[in-house]
């Protein structure tokens, strides 16, 4: 009886605990074929206000493609939060779409899996050539020196959005162009329960984006030339400290922002609770929150001094969505045709206008729509002063490790715990140690 009980206990425990182990798996073929030349499956990332909205926007374009080529595209819009895991599952199982969207910061990580079609010169030629795209966007599509793992589809960069009325009330006539000015202005603006700058302290990706741009300004890359993590360089520490100090030392970010991770800082801005926010293409969100276009202005993200540019004057990461093709597609020619279609001048104009992003295709940027004040700032930043995040296979790990370090430092700042160079370095040291090389 006792043996039976013991066996039952072991079985029960194994059954319940088994839930924490295990993953599916499989293999995928090494190259594409043309077994199914008349169909394609496309995973689009959720870019619009909802999945349904995206379907409405994309379906007419896909119909257009079908009319041109006879290839029927089966569309699935994937929510952003699920996209990476869905891609991982597809990569592992070999059961995925033919064409998909990826966040451009994941390019090198996904490139390392070997599951995506490399865009060598021959493949680029099939979609009109590499020169059609702006350099910074192509640089964010994979590791340097290797054929990109994807093609840029929608591009974005960061800008400084500011509340015109709050600036006028504080007697400030122009938006800050340097960080020093931002802090000076910020102190004037942070009063009576209102704050100067919004932040998403618990959003790991946003933390990385801000720390990276500031890191560039301090001459830090977060990775050395061999691709090894280098989070504790003086520049990296200074960059992270500068960002967290907006809350800890300068007191221009509200302590409550330390727990923001769901774009609450945009709501605060739209409601007039904060005067500035650093964001990518926020116009549609402000409109949705009831803010009129004339109420806010847009300026380049500040730099240490002078004007934005490359190197130490970099003021944004290259943000955006890339389009990739799974190597094991059964319609390789159709997939390339579809990428060519989606990155054609006309489609780029239509889609980027709709989504409020910047076309990574040079010719499409000439459209007047992309010269409106907001998009012009984003476009110029992208062209002259944005740099891609480190294109390393463990970029995802970097985002988590350093993003979490910044989140914890914000938590310290919000709780009144001093944020010092030593405490910043200690957090980054810990982040670096967890990077499994």
């Amino acid at each position, binding site marked *: 009886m*006792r043996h039976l*009980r*013991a066996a*039952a*206990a*072991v079985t*029960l*425990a*194994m*059954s*319940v*605990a*088994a*839930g*924490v*182990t*295990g*993953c*599916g*798996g*499989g*293999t*995928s073929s090494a190259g594409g074929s043309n077994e199914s030349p008349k169909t394609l499956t496309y995973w689009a990332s959720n870019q619009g206000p909802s999945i349904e909205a995206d379907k409405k926007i994309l379906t007419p374009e896909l119909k257009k493609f079908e009319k041109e080529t006879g290839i029927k595209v089966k569309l699935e819009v994937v929510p952003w939060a699920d996209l990476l895991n869905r891609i*991982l599952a597809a*990569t*592992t199982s*070999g059961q995925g779409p033919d064409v998909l969207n990826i966040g451009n910061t994941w390019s090198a*990580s*996904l490139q*390392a*899996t*070997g*599951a995506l079609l490399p865009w060598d010169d021959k493949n680029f030629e099939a979609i009109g050539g590499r020169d059609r795209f702006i350099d910074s966007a192509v640089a964010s599509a994979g590791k340097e020196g290797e054929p990109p793992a994807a093609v840029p589809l929608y591009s974005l960069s960061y800008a400084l959005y500011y509340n015109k009325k709050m600036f006028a009330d504080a007697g400030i006539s122009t938006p800050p162009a340097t960080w020093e000015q931002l802090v000076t202005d910020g102190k004037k603006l942070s009063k009576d329960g209102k704050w100067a700058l919004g932040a998403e*302290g*618990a959003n*790991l990706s946003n933390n990385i984006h801000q720390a990276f741009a500031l890191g560039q300004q301090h001459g830090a890359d977060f990775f050395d030339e061999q691709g090894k993590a280098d989070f504790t360089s003086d520049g990296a520490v200074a960059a992270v400290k500068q960002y967290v100090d907006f809350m800890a030392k300068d007191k221009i970010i*509200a*302590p*409550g922002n*330390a*727990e923001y*991770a769901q774009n609450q800082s945009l709501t605060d801005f739209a409601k007039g609770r904060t005067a500035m926010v650093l964001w990518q293409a926020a116009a549609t969100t402000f409109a949705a929150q009831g803010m009129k276009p004339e109420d806010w202005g847009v300026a380049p993200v500040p730099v240490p001094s002078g004007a934005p540019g490359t190197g130490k004057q970099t003021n944004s990461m290259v943000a955006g969505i890339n389009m990739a093709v799974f190597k094991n597609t059964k319609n390789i020619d159709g997939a390339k045709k579809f990428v060519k279609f989606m990155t054609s001048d006309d489609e780029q104009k239509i889609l980027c206008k709709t989504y409020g992003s910047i076309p990574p295709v040079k010719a499409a940027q000439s459209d007047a729509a992309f010269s409106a004040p907001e998009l012009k700032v984003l476009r110029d930043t992208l062209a002259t002063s944005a740099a891609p995040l480190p294109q390393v*296979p*463990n970029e*995802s*790990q970097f985002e*988590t490790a350093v*993003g*979490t370090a910044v*989140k*914890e430092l*914000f*938590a*310290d700042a*919000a*709780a009144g715990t001093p944020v010092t160079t030593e405490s910043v370095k200690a957090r980054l040291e*810990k982040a670096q*140690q*967890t990077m*499994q090389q």
Partner: protein
Amino acid sequence: MTAVTTDPKVDKPDGVRSTGTGDARRRLPRIPDRIRQGGLPYLLLLPAVLLELLIHIIPMIIGIVMSFRQLTQFFINNWGGAPWSGLDNYRIAVDFDAPIGEALLHSFLVTCVFTFFAVGLAWLFGITAAIMLQESFRGRGFLRAVFLVPYALPVYAAVITWAFMFQRDNGLVNHVLHDQLGLTDQPSFWLIGDNSIYALIIVSVWKGWPFAFLMLMAGLQNIPRELYEAASIDGAGIWQQIRRITLPSLRPVNQVLVLVLFLWTFNDFNTPYVLFGKSAPESADLISIHIYQSSFVTWNFGSGSAMSVLLLLFLLVVTAVYLFFTSRGRKGADA
């Protein structure tokens, strides 16, 4: 939503003997004698065994195999070809002086503390409510139904609501504690920093206690009223009755209940994930999230699998030891 009835046919908890099967056995038509005598039980078990294999055992074996491989993003496309790494993943996981092992140990200890309080409080609330609702009174059915609401709600919706309530600036919790009652000098953070573990325990208890309540209420139905009557004639007070009659009689129910609550709570992924996202604060870094992060966020599936296997072994040992010790005292209860 259904109110719980006092149906005497409610499933008997583990440990209560069922009646024999001999009387009820009837000849089964159209089944050859050979199968009926030898193979039928196995035939009946087959679907369950197959499903168990497919859903649990095979993935578990795959997980164990993965834990001996260097399965990073470079190999997930063809993970059968990932190089063998022997015990490296395990060595890294249990090297508590190095950052990965240290973080895993921290996460394990946090999970132990969390589980202890979450299970303990859920059980305490469950038993209290079950005993209080044992006697019939006006409105008892309504209260029973209301108490089961947290158990009936979809976890995601419930936890996201808690996340809103725990927000520092606009949350209901701080509104009550700080604005209305003035219990804190300034609004506290609940979703970042050191208070996160309290938020996690509160949500977990809120989610878990109705199940304890339900199980214990069912268990209470099986305690004969005469025992209480006899005890009160002998002068036993309410506490004595609970200590000498209620708790010993509930022993078989509690044995299963605590085990199930322990396993659910220890492995709980939904609550911390919805509350904190993929990067939980240090004070609330539960092992389920930690392993998820090691696997799916940092793309090191070999390391994540090794951690999972270690967790599986731990839960196996704890469960086996627990059942061994709790079974020893069962003979008396079974009589």
